[in-house]
């Protein structure tokens, strides 16, 4: 018997399981309803924090992605919650995406008594405590990046730890990757639009589709696809 094997057996004898490599179980996921994204990432992980990042003020497809995810989850008769820090959720778009509105608890932060970000995090805390929601989404997409930078990393860490024990997914729309390593999945999005019709006649022109480029910034589910990018297309309601 080699000396390594002898040492191994001696250690295992005194501390059973000390040298055993435990495989982290594959987390359960929700389908986002977008084949390209589900194929690359495996889906939106339950019991973890997912951040969807794109700069504020530009079209990136993050809201379309979120509504698609919520539509998938509410379609399976689960309840979801959306904490809307800047009150920008559009029920008409959600309805067109197939989201069951009667299963979506919408919390509209008014920013009257305290700052919207503060309200959003307090509301998210309450929703996580209540339990029973498949997806809890926090939309900080329109919040000024300077304000998001002021959120301490411990806040994200706390959310990540609390979510570990729950069968729900926490999805946060952010202007940049603020949660860093606390997020199990980070998606960076950018989009470009395609128009149809004659350039000179404005009323013949229509947005025909929006090509969304997804870059998987970080994932715990499939290590090998880090920094891989993939595209998907979202069409407007009239297309």
């Amino acid at each position: 018997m080699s000396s390594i094997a002898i040492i191994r057996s001696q250690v295992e004898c005194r501390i059973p399981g000390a040298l055993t490599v435990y495989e982290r179980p594959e987390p359960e996921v929700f389908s986002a309803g977008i084949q390209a994204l589900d194929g690359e990432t495996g889906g939106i992980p339950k019991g973890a924090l997912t951040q969807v990042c794109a700069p504020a003020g530009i079209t990136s497809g993050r809201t379309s992605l979120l509504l698609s995810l919520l539509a998938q989850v509410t379609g399976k008769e689960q309840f979801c919650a959306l904490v809307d820090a800047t009150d920008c959720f559009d029920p008409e778009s959600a309805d067109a995406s197939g989201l069951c509105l009667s299963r979506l608890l919408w919390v509209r932060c008014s920013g009257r008594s305290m700052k919207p970000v503060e309200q959003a995090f307090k509301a998210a805390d309450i929703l996580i405590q209540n339990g029973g929601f498949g997806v809890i989404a926090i939309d900080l997409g329109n919040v000024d990046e300077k304000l998001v930078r002021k959120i301490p990393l411990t806040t994200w860490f706390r959310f990540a730890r609390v979510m570990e024990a729950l069968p729900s997914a926490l999805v946060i729309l952010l202007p940049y990757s603020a949660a860093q390593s606390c997020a199990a999945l980070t998606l960076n999005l950018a989009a470009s639009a395609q128009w149809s019709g004659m350039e000179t006649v404005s009323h013949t022109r229509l947005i025909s589709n929006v090509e969304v480029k997804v870059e998987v910034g970080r994932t715990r589910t499939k290590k090998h696809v880090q920094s891989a990018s993939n595209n998907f297309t979202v069409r407007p309601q009239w297309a």
Partner: protein
Amino acid sequence: MFGCIHVPDFPVQAALLRESKTLPVALLDGPESLLKVVACNAPARSVGVSIGMTKPQAEICGVTLMKRVQEHEDAAQAELIDAAYNFSPRIEATSSGTIIIDLSGSERLLGTDKTIAQLILSEVTKRGFESNVAIAGNPDTAHYAARGFKGITIIGSGDEAQSLSKLPVEVLGSAPDVLDVLHAWGIRDFKSLAALPSIELTERLGQHGLHLQRLARGAVMRELVPAALPPSFQESRELEEPIELLEPLAFVLNSQLEQLMGRLIERSLATDHIEIELTLEVHSDRDVNAPVCCSTLSTYQRTVKLPVPTQDSRVLLKLAQLDLAAHPPHAPVKKIKIAAIPTQIRFTQTGLFQPIAPEPAKLEITMARLRAVVGEADLQNRNLVGFPALLDSHRPDHFQVVPPSAKQSDSAEPFPRLALRRFRPAIPARVEVSAEQVPVWIGFSRRKARVTCASGPWRSGGQWWDAAGEWLREEWDINLTLDGHTALYRIFRDLATRNWFVEGMYD
């Protein structure tokens, strides 16, 4: 077989329900200028207080003086009736603090007479009363035994006269003139009354005298007069000192809600609607026009509604607390009245493979807590917390936010669509248009950008019959390039004011 519950000094026990009974307490009643003691407990009697004393006389004895409140006694009587209903549906509320229960046939269910008596006593004790319980073959024997003997008394069939013999004739509760006659004859107890010759007694006191003698012999058998159910589920409490803070108020609310829920549970009912009425003591210093050193009472009402019926007092307490925290009363609370609207219990079938969903009662608390954080409603009076519902209208951004409902609406097949992120309210913009009236430059939120592509105009309008609600607008979808990125916006021009606004961003 009949059982009787008798609560001695019932008015005092009703006033001190769920509180310490060891304090010497006397209850006062009558006009403010001439308050007299109408009831007192044993510790108060031991220090010399007696019924009929005036307030100053009672004060000298150093006892706690309280004003008699009829509502307390009604609530306590309802509580006693509830306790009795646990043992039989046939009960009689003989008087305040005295309930007779028909126990015929309950031996097989509950056990021997002694076991039944112990069960009744423990049930009544659990509800905060010190009582006597007696079981006998007829209602009146049980009644007088409970009034006359402390603790549990069991009187077997045929032993009625023997068992009641030592009781004083005052226990019969007869008119004072009849008692005076009996005392004049030297009749002091049931035994002496039972031994009198019936014919001579009837000649002197009439049929009433004969009836009293038969009662003393334990020989009267009668039907019970059924007690009526409480007309409503209400609890009321008047406080000695007004409460200013919500925390002590919640303490009082808790005990009242527990009693109400207990009553509902006994009748297999639940509630989805409670009404809280607070009587506030408004002091004169709040109103500069009012005369100094006087206070007025005003009422403050709140309603707590649940989407599903509940029997859990903690859920209702939490909702009431959150509601009162969001809408606090403007003055100290002097009196609390809670009414629960009874409804049938909700039965639901659960399954192992059912998707997770928040519990309805818990969700209501969560929504109340969320409302405490974000507020109740926006400027258009739409709720800030709830479930979105589209309205049947062509007006843009026309929706309402509703509480959860048991009925779930159907939705279309999920499919990723380009979503709009709305700006509420719409952002005012400066737009330069070309000769063809197509937007070419736009400036909003300290940004200016060239419009690279525009789709429109898409005109819409509605509610022309209502000057206040009429809307008419011209919509455009525009493509901007901001910092090298594509940005698709929806803008519109209000045709009434000719002003431009940015409605939202496609995302």
